[in-house]
């Protein structure tokens, strides 16, 4: 956990951008990594102004109203039909979504 995100921002490297792209499941062409690095570094540099805000004793606020979860009545309701679920699928085999092989031979 870095104490000071400024230093990390300034040091944002193409390797970090490539790593983040991988975490985000994005296939960024090698020729575009530097462009993204420059743009992301500029935004992160701006965001560093958050460090100047005095936050002593301030609790994080993830949601405007911090409402509690509202539970629905425990009554079964009709979900989407299989046809409705599959109607936008890019590849289907029978009643199933088709995907490339997940496990290699011998797994």
């Amino acid at each position, binding site marked *: 956990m870095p104490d000071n995100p400024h230093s990390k921002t300034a040091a944002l490297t193409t390797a970090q951008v490539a790593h983040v792209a991988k975490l985000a499941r994005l296939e960024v062409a090698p020729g575009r990594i530097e462009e993204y690095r420059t743009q992301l570094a500029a935004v992160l540099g701006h965001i560093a102004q958050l460090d100047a805000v005095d936050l002593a004793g301030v609790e994080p606020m993830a*949601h405007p109203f911090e409402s509690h979860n509202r539970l629905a009545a425990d009554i079964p309701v009709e979900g989407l039909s299989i046809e409705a679920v599959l109607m936008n*699928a890019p590849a289907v085999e029978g009643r199933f979504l088709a995907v490339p092989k997940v496990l290699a031979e011998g797994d």
Partner: protein
Amino acid sequence: MTSPTHTTPVHNTPSDMTALRDAVATGTTTAESICAGMLAVTAERNTEINAFHEVFAEHALEAARRVDSDARAGRPLPPLAGMPIAIKDNVATTLGRTTCSSRMLENYRSPFDATAVERLAHAGAVVMGKTNMDEFAMGSSGEHCKWGPVRNPWDSTRVPGGSSAGSAAAVAGGMCAAAIGSDTGGSIRQPASFCGIVGLKPTYGRISRWGLVAFGSSLDQIGPMTRSVRDAALMLDVMSGIDERDSTTADRPPTELAKTVERPIEGLRVGIPRQYMSDANDTEVSAAVHAAADAYRALGATIVSVELPLTDVGISTYYVIAPAEASSNLARYDGIRYGHRAQLQPGEDLFTLYARSRSEGFGPEVQRRIMLGTYMLSSGYYDAYYKRALQVRRRIKQEFDQAFTACDVLLGPTAPTPAFGFGANSDPLAMYLCDVYTVNTNIAGICGVSIPAGFAERNGKHLPIGVQLQANAFEEDRLLRAARMLERALATTTGAHVARM
């Protein structure tokens, strides 16, 4: 004014939706003629303006004819009977596609209607078409759209604002009676300002988000984009209220603001945050705010100066929270269940399928924000960015609460400038900074409305300027009554706009 086609928005009719609705109910006109008129304007102007991605002409005319037949038979008409309404393309409709103006969803057909759409239809509205937007609602200009940029009806060399670009342009261009947009950081209010219409961002939880494609779940709200304040009140009345399918809807009854919106507020206190009158605003923008303050004074309101010191920090807070939530929400687009799927070469694996599908399906701005959010949520950075932004969020909310002890509504610019030209903010950070006056409304979850308040002249064209009013959470009654007072005082109803041209 050289070319009327370019400079006469709402040339179809100067009436607002409430007036059109009344005209249908009293038999002065027919829903079919209103609908046909707007379809004709759309046919004439949409090629240039590009507000609509899809128009449901036959469906709209049929629905309008049903309303006319009900009216002739003397059956009671619902509040929006026969009114053609445009729907932003990130709101699910069973009619047509729901693309978010993205290649990722270019063929996506929703198996259900959003709650807001369901409620509009139940109130008699006619879903006229789907409007173009910045991809996945990420943008402030309407330029980042798979289906081409949207143009401002007041000056087609300029952007309409975004992300609810097509909805704003369709209302301003006379192509529909009203529209709905979504607002995560200003996406209803800023294009409303640029296009000279009314745009309301309701309190978080007022309108169900069921069927709204998720971007920043703690920030997103659906809201009306209209020709008048009373139209916005009417649409909020129809769309608001608890929804079992969205657990974040507030447990409150639907609003009934159409009944009260014409009633001025006695002893209204209008606060002007000192930080909103920045030197960075265009002269005409600050002048419009001063003129609005003068109008309020003339109505007997008190103008007070208030402090919102964290105004500028809002952008930084927003560009942590919104990308963080977006990176999580947009993880669902994996090329498996729906959305774009890349073609793999033999031997390529599942990871490649995910990554290539996403990079082919999402445009650069969406990928930028996903990477930003992923970075800030990644191990070692979470506390420094995300947790810190959530702490600042609470401080921003506290500042608003403090300001609202001294005033009932806040007045300021909606955006620092009128509509800018295409490509003027091609640097992502420069584009983000345009949202300085609107993001904090979403961060705090309160309500805000932009209403037309003047014009700036650029190259012989009149560009609308909006002013923004904000009120505390669930204070839409106060917000819209105050907005209506100003609208009446400034005579900036759409009719007056046309008269001014």
